[in-house]
């Protein structure tokens, strides 16, 4: 949040006037202060100038590619970035997420959906005073003692399962791509070994979910990765 006021500031970088106008109406109605930029260069300048709390970024910009804008932003700020694009190919989503986007929404989108994603992203950006215990729904993870409880009952985990769970907990609510997870948990050499991830996700769901075949916590993002739902 900006320092003087509690009104969150959103920066919309999109070349379509209609989309900018709609976003402005909806965001302002929900208590945001909105700034607009019609291309990447302006967007980067505005981001530096306005210090937004959240950035909504379109990938198809007239002057430069959205992913490049993202990379440049990430050189100096950790501001949450939500990518909003008509590109619905999974490769594009993965590229954005791997390059530091916090979330990805495909046009057309619902306003309710967008607001929810914005809230999650913003919460992430808040400096967390190193929570020792993560609680969400039936899951409780004590990050200092490395113990996991489901519905209050201690569940035993292997080292890998715990490493995986911990990664999700640290990024609760955020989409993690297959590559990101595999690199983080198994190491860079395993970035393409999806079958490890499939097997361990099944284990994790088995241990944590109420109904493992219809998961409510570890959500599959088709072709992209997984997300730990925040309750």
């Amino acid at each position: 949040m900006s320092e003087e006021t509690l009104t969150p500031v959103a920066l919309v970088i999109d070349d379509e006037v209609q989309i900018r106008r709609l976003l402005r109406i909806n965001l302002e109605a929900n208590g945001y202060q909105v700034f607009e930029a019609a291309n990447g260069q302006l967007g980067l300048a505005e981001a530096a100038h306005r210090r937004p709390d959240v950035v909504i970024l379109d990938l198809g910009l007239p002057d430069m590619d959205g992913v490049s804008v993202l990379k440049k932003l990430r050189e100096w700020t950790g501001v949450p970035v939500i990518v909003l694009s008509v590109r619905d190919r999974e490769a594009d989503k993965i590229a954005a997420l791997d390059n530091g986007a916090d979330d990805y929404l495909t046009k057309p989108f619902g306003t309710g959906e967008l607001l929810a994603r914005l809230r999650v992203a913003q919460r992430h950006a808040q400096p967390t005073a190193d929570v020792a215990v993560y609680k969400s729904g039936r899951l409780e993870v004590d990050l200092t003692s490395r113990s996991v409880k489901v519905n209050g009952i201690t569940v035993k985990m292997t080292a890998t399962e715990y490493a995986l769970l911990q990664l999700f907990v640290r990024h609760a609510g955020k989409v993690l791509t297959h590559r990101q997870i595999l690199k983080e948990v198994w190491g860079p050499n395993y970035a393409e070994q999806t079958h490890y991830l499939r097997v361990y996700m099944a284990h994790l769901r088995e241990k944590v979910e109420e109904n493992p075949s219809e998961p409510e916590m570890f959500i599959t993002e088709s072709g992209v990765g997984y997300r730990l739902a925040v309750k």
Partner: protein
Amino acid sequence: MNDDIRADPDSLLEAIQRQERTGKLGQLKIFLGMAAGVGKTYAMLEAARKQQAAGVDVVIGYVETHGRKETDALLQGLPVIPRQQKEHRGLTLSEMDVEAVLARKPKLALVDELAHTNAPGSRHPKRFQDILELLDAGIDVYTTLNVQHVESRAHTVAEITGSIVHETVPDRVLDLAEIELIDISPDDLMRRLDEGKVYLPDRAEVAMVNFFREGNLTALREMALRLAAERVGQDVRDYLQVMQIQEPWKTGHRLLVAVSASPLSAQMVRWTRRLADSLDGHWLAVHVESAKALSEADQARLTKNLALARELGGEVITTADEDLVRGVLRIARQHNVTQIVVGKPAGGGLGQFLRGGRFLHRLVEESGDIDINIVRAGKSDTPQPKPILHFPRPTGAKQYLLSLGVVAGVTLLNVFLNPYIRYRAIGLDYLLTIVVLALFVERGPVLASATLSALLWNFFFLPPPYTFRINSFEDAMMFVTFFVVAIVMGELIARFRTQEKAERRREERTTALYLLTRELADALTLDQVVKVVVKHIGKMFNAEVAVVLKGPNGRLPRQPMSGSTLAMTEKEHSVATWVFDHNRAAGQFTDNLPLSEALYLPLATPAGNLGVIGVKLSQKNAPNLEQNNLLEAFVRQAGLVIDRQRLHEAAQQSHLAAESERLSKSLLDSISHEMRTPIAAIASAASALSERGTVASASRTEAMLDEIKEAVARLNRLVGNILDITRVESGQMKPKLDWCDVGDLVHVTVKHLRKELAEHPVSIVLCPELPLVQMDFVLMEQALTNLLLNVAFHTPPGTAVQVSAKIQNDELAVTVADKGPGIPPEALERVFDKFYRAPGAAAGGTGLGLSIVKGFVEAQNGRVQVSNQPGGGAAFTLWLPLGEVPVILPEKI
């Protein structure tokens, strides 16, 4: 093109023999098809019934109808020879009773499945051997055959279909037969297969299913067509060769000019060309090689003369024959020549007059009804130095040394023998040596040793010894005989050798061409044709080869076709372009641009120049006449095949273009409707909302908003579908195959469609222990989504739908089955077609959804299947192949 093959006198003989043989032997007729199920047996029976109706005595030796009703019906009234039962390992196998058929001696016997392997212990291991026996006995036979069983094609079939063919029939059996092609389109065959009208030996066998894929069938069909076409060509050629013995075929003028090393030949060639032009006829330039070796100068002139003939558009044929007249007439008959052009002997000495006169006389005498034109040849352009005696080219020094050694050895031996035997016997001794020597060395050394032996004999042994004098008349006669015998021997041996060599070279050439032709016949695409050509020319001449084909703009592109082994520099390319523009060979070893790195030949065809073949020979010397001829034959053959292939591909292109035009029209029709409807809904709902005059009730506003949302969802789906089908159609789709959890796939898909399937109860049945399966998760989700949306749109609300997944025969099967009205049977096989909408389907929809499903699943090496369930409702199944799941070692807690 294959004149070089046809020029073989053996082929003529063979044709005659075949004709004679078929006169008394039974005739074989093969009903040839691309695969099982095209209706060969049916066609055979129909043909047989016609014969029977015409009064021919027809019996059935062995026919398998596999219980097909229509085929069974044709059997009525045809007498059947009972089959022979064979016991083998507890199985009873029934085979044709050859003995019984022979005893019955019908005019025509029907024997199904030429490629069949008989039960162990039968008369012959193979059925075609049974059939050959019937033919030998003068019985005509009708039989059936699939193209994959033809020996020369079996290998290619295995490559295409992946299934090895064990039962093959040698091509020579096909050569005996008249072939009738039974051809239906692959689509029709697939339909018959689906309808269960095709009998397969083992239905469970996956290989069989693979065999009947459309791509395979198209290739097999092509192969069958070509095979049949080749045989037709053979028949026509045979007929031609046999008939022309009585009378040449007067289908227009064909001229022949005999070409030799004489400078006059060039004039004769020009004269023939003019005559051919005025008669609008085709002309041949024939050179008859004899055993007599040519001097360097003669060889060069001959090459020039033949090149001139070629340049002027004549077909150049070289043949080997000791008898000039016989050689010329043989070629003339083989090529239906109507007129032969020869030169009038141009004075100059009695000998030449006699020789020329004799040649003319014999030619006129033996030419039958071929006209002979005698042309007065003018003075030759360049006076030809005529050597008085023709010395053969020196042969290897080794041979002379060997001969010298042998003669010296024999002389030494004779010195020892001299006290015991008389000098005449010693003479015979020498003679014997010469005769034996002639077997091993060439003419030169033979003559040399003969001379030397005679002199040695005379000097050392003939009285008076140590002089060259000869006393008695008998001795003189003996001496002369000695010489004559030695010379004749040497000459005979030399002739024999040369002929043998020529024969061998021709044999090699024929074989090389045959191999090229055979491989070319099997090549299905232009790229394959180019590859075959490059390979063969490269191997035969030990050369690097480039094929450059005319581009669409009619120019020669800078880059040779892929598969070429010769890289071309800018300079070389300009040489190739020159060749292309002038339609004449150029480059290394030619008169045009001889400093180039390679030799370039135009790919000339009757339809024009198709491109250029560049050949970089590894040898430093110019290719000889033989090599030149072979190279040209190769290039001609390549030109014809490439021409044919081009035409074929052009035809396919235009077919594709028409198809795509049709599709884009239906696309426009269907999409304009699908787009306008939701746009209209949005427009009307939005304007209703903005109209201030009306009393806006909350519920009405809500309803309008819902309309807009639904229209938007529909538009969005449409755009998604169009993008998807574009990806499928463009062929650019590269599925990202990952190991995926099938349960996750099914649950995620169903969850995403909660809203659309709100009124359809969904049940999920997953067989336990499903392994990870390699798939593109997103494509599979979209495929499943389309299937489920299909249910949502085309079945009444409340219809239950079940999504299930199981493993069957190394494949994953994901099935979406509903309890709805099902699909009209006539629509079943078309539902996956683009823009196809089943009759009676609900309004809306583009008919793209299911073709996207098919495209997406096939891109992952899977397949789709649709059927109506016995209990009602449609069931769509997506099949994906299973792979070996990598092992992950379990981890301890």
